[in-house]
C-alpha cells in the first residue's frame, strides 16, 4: 500500500522521531511511504482558539496538498491510497473540523473536498489495526511502559483499545495500566496558556498517576499531550521518559541509522 504521511507541524518541527518512526515502521511492514512536502499544519490551534477565519486558508492548503497526494500519479498526484498521521488530535481536526470550518465560511466545495480527504486519513493505530489488519508489528521493547489514551484519540476518533492491542503484542514489554487513564492531562492547546493554573492542576494529577505506575516510559499517540506531560515530568525530574507510540512499535534500535 502507498501511504502518505501527514507528519503534523508539531512532530515535524519539534518531535521528528514520532514521524520518522512512523515512516520506518510502515516501511518495515512492507509499505511504500510518501511525504507530500508542501504540507504544513491542520489548523486545529486556530480553530480551537476561535480563529476560524485565520484557519480557513490553512485548512484549504491542507486539503490541496493531500488531495494531490491521493490523486493518481498519471494525474500529477502521488497515488497514495491512504493518509496517516502520528496524532489522534490532528486526525480529529481533519475529520471533525475541516469541513465545518469550510462550511462556516460558506465554502461548500471546499467542505466536500475536505470530507473526502478526511475519509482517507487515519491515526497510526487505526491504520495499523483497521486498514492494514496487524496488531503484532514484530517489535520488541523490554521496558516498563504505561499508556495514556489521549482525549481526542479516545473520544473524537474512538480508537478504543487499538493502541493497547498493538502494545500488548510487543515482545518483552512490561505494560502497566495508568490509573485514571481517561482523564485529560490538561494540555488543551492554548488552554494550557489561557488557563495555566487549571491546566497545571490537571497535569499534577496526571503526573501523580504516572508516578504510581513506576513506569520508565509513558507513551501515547499524540506528541502534544506527551509534550505536556513530559514537560512536567522533566521539570520535576521524575525520571519517566515520554516516547511516542510509533517509536515503540518501530522496535528497539529503530533509530540506529537515522
Amino acid at each position, binding site marked *: 500500500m502507498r501511504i502518505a504521511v501527514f507528519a503534523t507541524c508539531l512532530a515535524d518541527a519539534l518531535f521528528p522521531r514520532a514521524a*520518522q518512526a512512523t515512516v520506518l515502521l510502515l516501511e518495515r511492514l512492507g509499505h511504500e511511504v510518501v511525504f507530500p512536502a508542501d504540507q504544513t499544519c491542520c489548523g486545529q490551534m486556530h480553530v480551537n482558539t*476561535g480563529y*476560524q477565519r485565520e484557519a480557513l486558508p490553512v485548512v484549504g492548503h491542507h486539503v490541496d496538498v493531500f488531495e494531490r497526494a491521493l490523486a493518481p500519479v498519471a494525474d500529477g498526484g502521488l497515488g497514495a491510497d491512504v493518509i496517516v498521521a502520528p496524532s489522534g488530535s490532528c486526525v480529529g481536526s481533519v475529520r471533525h473540523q475541516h469541513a465545518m470550518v469550510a462550511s462556516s465560511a460558506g465554502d461548500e466545495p471546499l467542505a466536500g473536498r475536505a470530507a473526502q480527504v478526511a475519509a482517507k486519513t487515519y491515526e497510526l493505530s487505526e491504520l495499523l489495526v483497521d486498514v492494514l489488519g496487524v496488531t503484532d508489528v514484530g517489535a520488541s521493547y523490554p521496558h516498563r511502559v504505561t499508556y495514556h489514551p489521549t482525549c*481526542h484519540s479516545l473520544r473524537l476518533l474512538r480508537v478504543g483499545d487499538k493502541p493497547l492491542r498493538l502494545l500488548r503484542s510487543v515482545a518483552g514489554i512490561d505494560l502497566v495500566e495508568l490509573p485514571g487513564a481517561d482523564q485529560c492531562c490538561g494540555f488543551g492547546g492554548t488552554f494550557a496558556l489561557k488557563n*495555566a493554573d487549571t491546566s497545571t492542576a490537571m497535569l499534577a494529577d496526571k503526573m501523580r498517576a504516572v508516578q504510581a505506575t513506576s513506569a520508565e516510559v509513558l507513551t501515547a499517540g499524540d506528541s502534544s499531550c506527551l509534550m505536556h506531560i513530559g*514537560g*512536567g515530568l522533566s521539570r520535576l525530574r521524575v525520571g519517566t521518559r515520554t516516547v511516542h507510540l510509533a517509536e515503540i512499535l518501530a522496535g528497539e534500535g529503530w533509530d540506529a541509522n537515522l
Partner: protein
Amino acid sequence: MGREPVSTDLGMPRRRVNPEASERGTLRGDLGFPQAARVALANGQLRRNLGHATATIRAKRAAVVAELDDWEALRDAGSALKADVMSRLPELLEQLEANVTARGGVVHWARDADEANAVITSIIQGVGARDGRPVDQVVKVKSMATQETGLNEALAAQGIAAVETDLAELIVQLADDKPSHILVPAIHRNRAEIRQIFLEHMAGVDPGLTDEPRVLAMAARAHLRRTFLSARVAISGANFGVAETGTLAVVESEGNGRMCLTLPDTLITLMGIEKLVPTWRDLEVFLQLLPRSSTGERMNPYTSLWTGVTPGDGPQEFHLVLLDNGRTAALADQVGRSALHCIRCSACLNVCPVYERVGGHAYGSVYPGPIGAVLTPQLAGMHGHPGVGPGAGPGDPVDTLPYASSLCGACFDACPVKIDIPSLLVHLRAQHVDGERARHRLPTAERAAMAAAAWVMATPGRFATAEKGLAAGRLVGRGGRISSLPPPLSAWTSARDLPVPPRETFRQWWSRRPSPAGTPSPFVRGAPSDE
C-alpha cells in the same frame, strides 16, 4: 466583619454585600475564570472534597447507564426530541399556554429575570390582598430557574421570605451560602459542618443534635413540616412541561417538593421556555435519561405531575411563569441553540476535569461546569453573542467562560441529550474572537500571532523557513530542556519544561534520505518492496 463560617467553599460566591457587584446578576461573576480558578485551586480541602464527590457520582452513573442496552438509542431520542422542540418552540409554547389555561391555570410571560420576579411578587401580594392577610413566607421546590432570576433576593426585598425545602438547598440557605453544583448544591459540606449550620441557624433545633445523617435529616424534616403546614404559597421550577396536555413535571428525591406542590393553596411555577416536550409520551424518554444521568439512580423517588387545577385536590390557584431571559437569543443561533437542550442533570459537571478541580465558584454563574460555559454566555450575553443583554464589554468575566475547557470531550460523552459541548465552546470562541475583530481594528497580540501563524502555515516555503528559525531555540535550552521563556509562553514554563528543538526537522531528515530510482517526484520515496 462577620465571622468566617467554618466551611470549605467549593462553590458559588457568597451572597454579595457590594451593591454594585450584585447588579451583575446571577449569571455574571466578579472575576474572569482564570483568576477565579486560581483562588479555588489553592484550596486543598476543596480539591479533595470535589475529587471524592465527583468520582463517587461518576461511578454510580457509569454503573446504571451500563445496565441499559438501549442507552445510546435513548440519548438519540432525547436529542431528537429536543431538536424538534427548538425548531417549533413558538407553536409548542402557545399549545402549552392554551392547555394550561383550559385546565384552570394562568400563564404569564417574562422577558427577563426582573420581569419574572415582578410577576411572581405581584401574584404573592395578590394572594395576601385577597385574604386580607399579607403573605410573608413562601415555600420553594429546588429550582434552577428561580436561582437564575435571583427570586429569593427579590422576594426578600419585598418582605417575603422564601424557604428552600430541598435538604441541600436548605443547608445552603441556612448558611447564607450559594450552591456549587446544579444537582448537589451542598456537595461542599460535610456532615459535621451541616450539624453546625443547623445548630446555629435552625430555630428550635435540638441542642443535642449529632452529625449522624439520619438525625440531621430528621431535624430538617421536623423543621420543614412546620413550614409546610403553614405555607399558603409554593414556588417551583419545572423539569418538563408537556405542550400536548399542559402538564408540568418535577423530578426529585426527598418528597419535600411534593409537599410544596400539594399542600399550599397557591402554586407558582417558573419555567424556562426551553423545558418543553411535545407530548406526554416523550416523558418516557426523559424520565429514563434524567435520573440515571444525574443521581445515578434507575428511577428517582418522586415524580410529580400536575395539570392546571383540580377542584378539592391540591392547589386551587396555579400560575405558570414562562421565562425567556436570553433563551430566544440562544435559539436564534443555529449552533448555539443546542445548549437549550440541557435537562440540568449535571452529568457533565461530574465528568469534567476542569470542574472537578475548580468547583462551581470559578464560573461565576448559577450554571457552572461545561454546560454553564456554553449556556451562561448565551443567556447573559458576551462579546459577539447577544443574550438577555449585549455583554458587559471589555473585561467581562463571561467572555472567559468558553475558554474554560481543555476540549477533552468527556462532557459530550456523558450528556444524556448529546449536546456537543466541545463544538459549542469552539463556536462561542469564534463568536468572541469575531466580536473582538469587529470592535478593534488594531489586532491584539494574540490575534497578530494567530494571523502570522496562519500566514506561515498556509504556504509550505514559509513554514519550512519558520522551522529553521526554531533551531535558535537550541541556544536557550540547557541539558536538553528549556525551563524559562518570556510571556505568554512563561505560562507554560511556569510548571513545565520544553524540549530543545531537534537538530533536524522531520522534513530535513526526509529530504536527505537517499531517493530510490524511478520515483515520480523528489518527495516520493518508499522502501524497497517485494513487488
